[in-house]
Structures are given as C-alpha cells and as structure tokens.
C-alpha cells in the first residue's frame, strides 16, 4: 500500500514535469505569461513531490519492507539505520530517483532566483531542466521502479508494479543486504557529491540552450551561471576525490585510481567542465569563442548523461548486456537527441555567435587558454576512446579486449605535463597581447627557483626522468603562483600602505575569482605531488609470514604478532591481524589489517592497516585469497610515497573554490569595474 503510494507520487511528479515543459513552450509561443508562471510553479513543485517519494522509499528501507524488490536487494535486518537510508543510492532504481531528486532541488533553486533581467530565458530553462527530469523520472516510472513489489504467481516469484491476477504478496524473511563495498563512510558521501556535480551542470546547460533559443547569445548566460558552474565543478571534483579515497581505503589494491570505465565515466564531464571554466573567461574578457563555449557545455551535459548511462546500462560488462537492458538504448537515444538538437541550435545561431574581437598574439592569455582547451579535449578523446574501444572491438571484430591503465597512463601523461606547463606560463601572460620578452621577464625568477628545487630533488631523492620533469613542472607552477601573489600583495602594500598580511587578504578578497583560481592551481600541484609519488615510486611486496616472522619493504620492517577472528557489528565476521612496524630499528606502532566477511551478502572486504605521514603511506593488506591459519598469514605491503599530498591538495582545493565562488555583494557592478582594466593588467580572473 505504502509502496503503491510512493509509485503514485512519483508518477504524478513525472506528469508535472511534462506539464511544465508543455506549459512553458506553449506559454512562451502564445505569449501567455500566466502559463509560463504556471510552468515555473510546476517546476517548483517537483522537489516537494520527489522529497515525498524519497521519504516513502526511505520509510520502506528503514522498516524492512522486503516485499519491495529494491528494499530486498539493498538492505538486510543486520544493517544499521544510517546505512539503510544511504542504501537509497546503493542500487540502480534508487540511484536514478536520487539523481532526479537532486536535479529537482537545483531546478527549484534556480527557479527562485531573480528573473527580472532575464525573463526571456525562464521558459527555456524550465523546458531543458524539466525534460531532463522527465527523462530520469520516466526511467523510474516505466523501467526501474524502486517501488515494485514481489508477488508469488504460478510462474514463481517476480517483481511487479501492480499486483497481477492470482498472485499473493511475497515477503522474504530478510534482504540480501547492501554490497559491503558500499557500506563505507566514503561511499555514503561519494555518490551524492558526484551526482550533485552531475546535476548541477544541467543548470549552465539549460541557460546555454535558453540563450541559443532566444538568440540572446552575448555572455549574459555565462555570467548568470558562473557560480553554478563553479559549484558544479566543486561537487564533481570532490566526488571524484572521495571516490579515490574510498577505493584506497576499501578496494584493497593499494591505489586510488584504476582507470576503470566507471571512474572514467565520471572523469569525462570533469574534463570538459574544467575546459569550459577556463574558456568562458575568454568570452567574458574578449568576446571570443562563443561557439566553442556552447559546444563545451553541451558536451559536458551529454557526458553527464552518458556517464550515468555507462554505469547504469550494463554496457560496460558487455555490449550484449546493453541490448538486454531496457534503459541502455533509451539513454543512448536521449544523449543522441539532446546532442543533435543542441548542436543544431548552435548551427542555427552560428552568425550571432561570431567573435567580437580577434586573437592578437600567440602568447596572449586567450591563446594559452585555447592550448589548455586542446589538452583537455585530447585527454577527453583518450578517455572516450579507451572506454568505447572494447565495445567497438567486440562489435566489429567479435574480439573482446581490455583497455587498462598502461594505455591511459601513456596517452594522457604528456598531455597532463603540457597542461602543467601552461598552468605555469598562462598566469603571467596578459589578455590581448604578450610577447616572449614580457613573459620571459616575469617567468625567469620562478624558472631559476624551479631549476634549483629540481636539482635538489635530483641529488637527494630521484633520478627518474619522468619524476624530474614532473617535479620541475610542479615547482614551476607553485613558484609562479606564489610569485604572482607576492607581486600583487607587494604592489598593494606600497599603494595602499597595508601590512603584508592585510595586503594578501585584501588582494584575494578584491579579486576572488583570480586568486581563488590560483589557490586551486596550487591545490592541483599538491595533488600532482601525490600522484607522482604513488605512480612512480610505489613499492610492494607480498609473502606468507609465521608469528614473529618479519618482512621488509621500502625501509620499513614489519613483524607479524598475532591474528584473531571475532564477530563484528553489521552482521560480519572480522579477521584481524596485528603487525608491529619498525624503521631503523625504532618501533613506530601497530598496524591492523583485517578481512571482514559479511554473512548476508556472502562477500569479503579487505580493509588495509595504514600508517600515514607526509613522506609516505605504509599500507598493509591481509590478503584474503590465501588461507589464514593459526601459524601463518599472507600479507601484501605497499609503501606509497607522498600519496597524502593528494588528499591534502583536495582540502586546499576546497578553500580555493569557496574563495572563487563566494558571492560578491553586487556581482554586476564588480564585473563592470573589472572590465575597465582588461588588457592593462595580466588579470587572470
């Protein structure tokens, strides 16, 4: 009964989104403002309706309603309450509903903004947001109903939305339980973050399409959505980082990123989103690249849908799974239709999107940003090709192939290095015009500094060529950024008679986007240090140890002390080992790698014992595929140098983006004033 109510509310929401689309189009075409207003209010209604739908689903999840197929699949009696709530996005049907719910929240938020100056965008923003929502809610209503219930018929137990004739409701004693991999705190936050990033990119896309339809193709749509895009980017980046952290802590393979197609699916919109964030600045400052910005936000939107499709359709396991799944072809159809329509709109508005000014110098800021876009798009091509190559190969040759990390690392490595180099040069170039001489004058000090740092690293740490290039670029970007900061603060200190700290503070406060961006650059470099460390210097060993026996790796000595097996919370059995860690004969502490066996899901999890410092991570796994006996156990030990800089970098990233996206008191006036100095300074903004 309650499940049917949930399904009913969800169906009504679907109809409301459809109404909103039609009312907005009809109202706009027939010039009936009341109808457009009605569409706006209908869109506002979607969030409370979907919140009610989600509330019903959570009620069913928390109260063990195993007669509901989704509840049966993702929960069990032994699971704690908070995990039953988060099980909402632990399965396909629930995660699609979660997507729609977040989307409706963003759509409502955007509806509540002041529309006075942009009234003509409103109906089309409603149309795009509601079509997207209708698609996702439609998936739930017609194909992946989270409220479908189990019925016993003569043919067996099957899930149905409506009770079939001659059937009785079937309630299993217990559920199958959430996949243990998804019971980690990281998994509680990672999907919401990623989905937030996904859905929030729909907002700039909606405005872009509205701009194309209305013909108001100046940079107004970019200025309106600038902060939306930054927040979207924040969520997506954090979603990716949290996913990496979760993989590091839970998957038990000693790394944070495996170039898995699912990871790449989430990474691709990030790539185009990042390129977009840079290239919109060219349009704002110079009135150029209007076609390109449109194309980038369209690509980002469709990669968001494509990413959800890749992870939800089963196509990644096999192209045949794609044909079996009903939602696969629909997703593909939706991506195709939106892509073709959007690109068609760009072609329709081609002339009004022409550049207002032209490129003056190959070393100008805009030229370097264009190169940055070339690198990002090349990385996107590598990723996209890597993901679809196995499908193409299977379709055309019948031969299934695997595209693993070596392909991606080899193909993207030089592109990432080029991006870092650009990150070092671009902040020193000016909008409009720069020469080798002007950039050279600004960059020679940071270059000398970077060479000294690299020489020290060469003498004391490594002679690996890739590492040397990588650390040189990291040092260059960090020094250029600090130099830029120092130059600005110094000038301010002199002109405004401020002390250096106040000067730094005010400098950042007066130009948040520029200096927030610099902090983000710095954070990326900290992450790069972590990535270089673990990718190039990871060492590992594996062996079976008896009690009191020792193994050594990367300067650490580990002595196996003890092992114990005991029942743990959440219906699992824990096998936990004790190892003492020594370095240079000095006792450093104890590590407790463990294996958790979940009875309900009949699955094991390998949780590492970790000792983290800024220098390295000692990461020990109790290898679960070797028999554990009273006398011996197999351990896999990794030393992951510098990896914690990756997590540290992500925290600094958060600071940078909050600074960059912090609302100005009066954004319009600040923008106008900033425009005055274009071409005179090297303002990155």
């Amino acid at each position, binding site marked *: 009964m309650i499940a049917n109510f949930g399904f009913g509310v969800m169906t009504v929401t679907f109809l409301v989104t459809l109404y909103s689309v039609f009312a907005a189009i009809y109202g706009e075409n027939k010039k009936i403002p009341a109808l457009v207003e009605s569409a706006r209010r209908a869109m506002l209604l979607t969030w409370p309706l979907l919140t009610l739908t989600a509330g019903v689903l959570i009620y069913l999840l928390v109260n063990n309603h195993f007669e509901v197929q989704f509840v049966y699949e993702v929960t069990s009696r032994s699971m704690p309450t908070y995990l039953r709530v988060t099980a909402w996005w632990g399965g396909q049907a629930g995660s699609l509903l979660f997507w729609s719910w977040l989307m409706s929240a963003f759509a409502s938020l955007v509806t509540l903004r002041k529309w006075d100056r942009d009234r003509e965008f409103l109906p089309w923003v409603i149309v795009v947001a509601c079509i997207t929502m209708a698609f996702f809610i439609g998936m739930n209503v017609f194909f992946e109903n989270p409220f479908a219930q189990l019925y016993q018929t003569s043919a067996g137990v099957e899930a149905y939305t409506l009770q079939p004739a001659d059937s009785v409701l079937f309630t299993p004693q217990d559920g199958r339980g959430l996949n243990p991999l998804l019971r980690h705190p990281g998994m509680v936050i990672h999907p919401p973050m990623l989905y937030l990033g996904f859905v929030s990119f729909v907002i700039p896309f909606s405005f872009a399409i509205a701009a194309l339809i209305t013909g108001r193709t100046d940079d107004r749509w970019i200025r309106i959505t600038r902060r939306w895009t930054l927040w979207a980017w924040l969520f997506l980046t954090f979603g990716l980082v949290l996913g990496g952290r979760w993989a590091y802590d839970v998957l038990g393979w000693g790394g944070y990123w495996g170039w898995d197609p699912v990871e790449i699916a989430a990474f691709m919109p990030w790539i185009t989103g990042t390129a977009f964030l840079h290239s919109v600045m060219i349009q704002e400052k110079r009135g150029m690249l209007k076609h390109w910005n449109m194309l980038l936000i369209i690509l980002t939107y469709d990669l968001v849908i494509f990413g959800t499709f890749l992870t939800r359709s089963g196509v990644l396991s096999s192209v045949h799974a794609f044909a079996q799944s009903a939602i696969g072809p629909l997703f593909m159809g939706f991506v195709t239709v939106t892509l073709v329509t959007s690109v068609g709109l760009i072609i329709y508005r081609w002339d009004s999107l022409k550049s207002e000014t032209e490129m003056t110098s190959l070393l100008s800021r805009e030229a370097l940003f264009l190169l940055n876009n070339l690198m990002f798009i090349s990385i996107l091509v590598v990723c996209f090709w890597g993901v679809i190559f196995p499908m193409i190969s299977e379709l055309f040759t019948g031969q299934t192939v695997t595209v693993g990390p070596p*392909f991606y690392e080899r193909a993207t490595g030089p592109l990432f290095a080029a991006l870092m180099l650009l990150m070092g040069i671009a902040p020193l170039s000016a909008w409009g015009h720069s020469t080798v001489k002007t950039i050279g004058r600004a960059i020679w000090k940071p270059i000398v500094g970077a060479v000294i740092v690299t020489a020290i690293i060469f003498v004391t740490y490594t002679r690996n060529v890739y590492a040397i290039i990588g650390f040189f670029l990291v040092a260059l970007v960090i020094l250029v950024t600090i130099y830029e900061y120092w130059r600005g603060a110094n000038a301010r200190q002199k002109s405004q008679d401020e002390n250096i700290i106040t000067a730094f503070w005010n400098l950042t406060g007066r130009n948040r986007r520029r200096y927030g961006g610099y902090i983000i650059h710095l954070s990326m470099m900290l992450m790069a240090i972590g990535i270089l460390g673990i990718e190039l210097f990871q060492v590992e060993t594996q062996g079976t140890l008896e009690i009191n026996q020792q193994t050594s790796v990367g300067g650490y000595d580990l002595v196996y002390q003890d092992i114990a097996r005991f029942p743990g919370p959440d219906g699992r059995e824990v096998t936990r080992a004790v190892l003492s860690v020594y370095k240079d004969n000095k006792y450093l502490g104890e590590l407790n790698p463990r294996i958790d066996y979940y009875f309900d899901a009949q699955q094991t999890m390998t949780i590492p014992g970790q000792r983290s410092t800024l220098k390295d991570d000692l990461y020990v796994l109790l290898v679960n595929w070797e028999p554990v006996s009273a006398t011996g156990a197999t351990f896999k030990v990794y030393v992951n140098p510098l990896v914690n800089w990756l997590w540290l970098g992500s925290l600094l990233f958060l600071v940078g983006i909050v600074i960059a996206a912090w609302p100005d008191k009066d954004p319009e006036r600040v923008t106008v004033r900033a425009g005055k100095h274009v071409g005179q300074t090297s303002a990155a903004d």
Partner: protein
Amino acid sequence: MRKLPSQISLRITHYAIVLLLLTTGFATSVLAQGPTPTDDEVNKIAKQLYCPVCESTPLDVCPTEACRQWREVIRSMLADGKSEDEIKQHFVEQYGVRVLNEPPNRLLSYLVPVVAFLLGSFILLRSFQTWKKPIASKAISSEGEAKPVQDGYIAKMEEELKKIK
C-alpha cells in the same frame, strides 16, 4: 528466490575456469622444477592480466578462487622456467586477448587519440594564423576605445538611476 541468469552463468564460468586450471595448471606444477617463485615474482606478471570474469580487477589483487588458481598457474610456469611473454601467451591462447591489460594491436588503440590531437593542433594553428593576420591595430583600438565609452555610459546610467531614486 530465483537467481539471475547472469549470476548463474558467472558462477558456471568460474567453476569452468577452476576445472580447466586444475587439469592444465596443476598437471604442469607436478612436473615443476627449480625453487618455488615468490609471491612478488608471481604478482609482477599477474598485475598485467585480467581474468575474463572479474571486471576491471587485475589478477594480482583479485580475491576470487578462480584468480587464485590463475596465480598458481603462473607460479608453476615460472618454476618451469617459462618467460613472462610465454606465460602471458599461454593465457591469451586459453582465454583470448581480453586477459591482457592492453589491446594487442597498439596501433589501432592509439591511432584515434593521436589523430585527434594532431587534427586539434592543426585547427588551432590555422585559427591562430587567420586570427592574427587582419588584427593588430583593430583589436587594440577596440580595446582602448570601446571600453571607456561603455564605462562612461554605464557610469552615466548609474548616476541617472541614483537621481531617480
């Protein structure tokens, strides 16, 4: 509850692999010569292989029974004095090229990204050339003149608005 067909076929595949390994792999290990290779030596090769069942999990960290058997095959082949390439080839012959972590035909897999990059660079270079030609005075003058006019206009507008208030 009925099991999904894919789950059943997954399990059957796993059992089939184990059975095949028991007959082929262990038969060779009986005849193994020399010292037993270490886990690290086994993992060095296992890292580069994927079993056909476990999605996106390299063999060296895969916890399934079938993958454990694969690693034992690698160990016994190493003990037999087989080289890394011979061992990889053995798995390719048994299970197809998908066990490798990279497509065997590298040219095909790298062709599209490389062509795309070159094409992108070409388009960019052409754009730079066409943009650069007519420019110089025009853009700079538009930069220098248009903005102050606009700014003056805005300032005037703001003043007018203040008066209205």
